[in-house]
């Protein structure tokens, strides 16, 4: 029954999208500047029906309706209700439904929030957005239908991977999708702006807040994904430059470049076509990312199950999107007159864009290069963290300096009178770095540079904050985000340099000593839980300097449905550092392999990202207030 209802609603939505496209095209030809009620009505109807459709799927998961293949493959009666619900979007088919729901809701919201804009621009945007919607709905109906039925109905589901039953992972897709799926709306708006030859200023003002919203949620989505990786996956890291992670980072670079360019346009009216390009690029990258992740073309720690047919469909869709964008862009491009002084804020924002594109190209290249070597030379290679770190980090050093100086440079033309202030700040940064080296230990040249420039950005921002406060011309959102970014890099740099990682094979009763620590495997406890058995190790970490003892209890969990083995890390966090311990058994041996890590300042890394996003939301509220 639910299967039929779901399918019906999907078909209904295709029909409604088509209805919107046709009526919009009809009303474009008619004179007058008001969008007729009927379009609002169809859009409301469309939003309502897709929401019902989505909740139909959620309902199916909650009641464990195994007639639906998706529910059968991804759920289980014994799963807690919260995770049954999260399981709705924790799989390929369900998450595509999430894609569509966001495409449709954003379409509706755009209609509602752009009443001040002319009919032509709004209608064409809605048409393009609905073409995207139809594309995805067709994909869902004919390739990845969450409502496909199974007969006879199985009595139990295949269960969901226990690693995926985690609160952070539950909200990760919705956050991320508001980010990069949300970018669809300014993709459509950009196409519409080109097609209707829309006023450049009006276009920018129409998409400004959408860009900010998608950027904030994209950042949060990435943060939550990293938090999940750190707490759940047991390797103690939070970023692996894995293809799926990179797929979420690529649109983020484009979005960041975009909203900075919007600022330049608003102030000086420059770079309209670059703004358009970035609008188109962001969503194109989102679809590219989804292609890379779902087609199975790449080997990754967290790909969905793969199916080449999916890949072909998405690639074709992507090709259509790319070539129609290029066609429109080339056709409508008009030369711009730049009147740019090198000593101006505009130039610095241009430099920001330049660096963002560099990061984008590096990450994109690193991600797809293995495909190229495989296809062209039949040789398989791996591109991992060492590549990305080596290429990107040196450039970040300079980037941080630019981030510090740029915002303080005046528009149009700066007279550099405060060079010596910068020298002071650089001195201060170097002195603090020296202090760190003296108190703790020395590290590589690159680390020195990164920490000095991060401190430079932080100190400049703080001085800026004090100055702005005094002159009561405060731009809190920028200061908070930039300063927090400096802190993020600082904390990552310090964490990287001062982490201790030890790998031991240890047996019960044994103690290992290193630096000023000792670890003893004191006890092994076997415990039985409702859906798993656990072997819990009791390890005592003794800090010989402070004589402080910590007991950590990592677990080896044996689940029976599905049959999996997971390793739960024992993490003890405080404001200074995290202790991180995982334990695994060694086959045919009484020894256990333990990995102990001391990771300074972990919590501050998460807090920094939250603050960066906070700055973004602050800007959003300021914009809303000013309107």
């Amino acid at each position: 029954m639910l299967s039929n209802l779901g399918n019906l609603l999907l078909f209904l939505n295709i029909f409604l999208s088509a209805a919107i496209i046709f009526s919009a095209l009809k009303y474009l030809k008619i004179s007058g500047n008001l969008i007729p009620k009927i379009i609002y009505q169809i859009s409301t109807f469309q939003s309502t029906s897709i929401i019902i459709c989505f909740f139909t799927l959620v309902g199916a998961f909650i009641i464990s309706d195994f007639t639906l293949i998706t529910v059968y493959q991804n759920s289980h009666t014994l799963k807690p209700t919260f995770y049954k619900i999260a399981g709705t979007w924790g799989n390929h088919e369900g998450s595509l439904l999430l894609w569509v729901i966001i495409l449709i809701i954003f379409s509706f919201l755009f209609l509602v929030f752009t009443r001040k804009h002319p009919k032509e621009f709004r209608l064409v945007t809605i048409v393009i957005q609905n073409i995207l919607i139809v594309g995805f709905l067709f994909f869902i109906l004919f390739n990845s239908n969450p409502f496909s039925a199974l007969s006879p109905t199985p009595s139990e589901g295949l269960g969901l991977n226990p690693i995926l039953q985690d609160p952070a992972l539950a909200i990760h897709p919705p956050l991320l999708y508001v980010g990069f799926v949300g970018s669809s709306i300014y993709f459509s708006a950009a196409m519409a702006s080109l097609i209707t030859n829309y006023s450049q200023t009006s276009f920018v003002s129409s998409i400004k807040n959408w860009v900010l919203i998608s950027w904030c949620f994209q950042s949060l989505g990435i943060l939550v994904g990293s938090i999940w990786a750190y707490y759940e996956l047991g390797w103690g890291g939070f970023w692996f430059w894995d293809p799926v992670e990179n797929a979420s980072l690529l649109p983020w670079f484009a979005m960041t470049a975009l909203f900075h360019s919007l600022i330049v346009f608003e102030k000086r009216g420059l770079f309209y076509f670059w703004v358009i390009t970035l609008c188109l690029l962001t969503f194109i990258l989102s679809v590219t990312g989804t292609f890379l992740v779902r087609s199975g073309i790449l080997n990754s720690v967290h790909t969905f199950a793969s199916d080449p047919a999916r890949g072909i469909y998405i690639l074709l869709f992507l090709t259509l999107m790319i070539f129609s964008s290029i066609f429109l862009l080339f056709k409508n491009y008009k030369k711009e007159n730049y009147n740019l002084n090198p000593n101006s804020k505009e130039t610095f924002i241009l430099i920001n864009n330049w660096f963002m594109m560099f990061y984008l190209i590096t990450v994109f290249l690193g991600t797809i290069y293995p495909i190229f070597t495989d296809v062209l030379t039949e040789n398989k290679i791996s591109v991992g963290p060492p590549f990305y770190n080596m290429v990107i980090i040196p450039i970040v050093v300079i980037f941080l300096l630019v981030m510090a100086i740029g915002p303080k440079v005046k528009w149009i033309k700066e007279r550099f009178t405060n060079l010596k202030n910068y020298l002071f700040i650089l001195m201060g940064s170097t002195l603090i770095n020296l202090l760190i080296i003296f108190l703790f230990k020395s590290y590589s040249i690159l680390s020195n540079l990164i920490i000095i420039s991060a401190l430079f950005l932080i100190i400049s921002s703080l001085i800026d904050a004090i100055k702005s406060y005094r002159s009561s011309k405060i731009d809190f959102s920028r200061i908070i985000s930039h300063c927090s970014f400096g802190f993020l890099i600082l904390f990552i740099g310090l964490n990287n340099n001062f982490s201790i990682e030890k790998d031991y094979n240890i047996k019960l009763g044994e103690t290992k000593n290193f630096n000023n620590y000792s670890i003893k495997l004191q006890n092994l406890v076997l415990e039985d839980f409702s859906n798993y058995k656990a072997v819990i190790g009791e390890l005592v970490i003794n800090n010989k300097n402070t004589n402080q003892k910590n007991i950590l209890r990592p677990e080896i969990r044996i689940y029976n449905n599905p049959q999996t083995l997971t390793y739960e890390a024992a993490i003890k966090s405080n404001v200074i550092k995290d202790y991180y311990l995982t334990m695994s058994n060694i086959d045919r041996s009484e020894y256990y392999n333990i990995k102990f890590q001391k990771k300074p300042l972990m919590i501050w890394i998460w807090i920094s990202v939250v603050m960066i996003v906070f700055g973004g939301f602050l800007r959003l509220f300021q914009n809303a207030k000013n309107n």
Partner: protein
Amino acid sequence: MQKIIKISIPIILIFIIVVLFIGLNKDTNYNTNSLIGKKISKINLKHYNENKFYKVDDLKKNKYTLINFWASWCAPCRAEHSLLIELSKEKNLKLLGVNFKDKKRQADVFLNELGNPYDFLTKDKMGKNAVNLGVYGIPESILVDKNLTILKKFVGPLSSKDFNSIIEIIN
């Protein structure tokens, strides 16, 4: 200048898309077939029973050698064992068995139960010799000729298809 951009960008994009399209049909599972054609340079395998070592020069005496990594704890090894017994009858082929990360008593039981097809039997208690030969899964078999060039690698248990291809090569 603009013309160059307008032509080169679509061309680059088409190139990327075509490569991605072809890439879809490629298998993402890795195999070490890139090693085929290379020579084995150094082995130092301890004899299973006696206190001597089996080295590269010993291999050169054989026309063809099939190096087979196995263990008593490995279920697929049982499955392929009968094929190994068949292969041991081949005149041109010598079988070098490497008992991988195993306990002698259990390995003895395995051989007593299923038969010993090996012309030479060695052991690799820590598994380090396996790394020297680019082995990463048990069972794994490597076919080499008298010049120690790797002719074929079989990761996982030998199938009858693998059996036939070995027969073809050595005759």
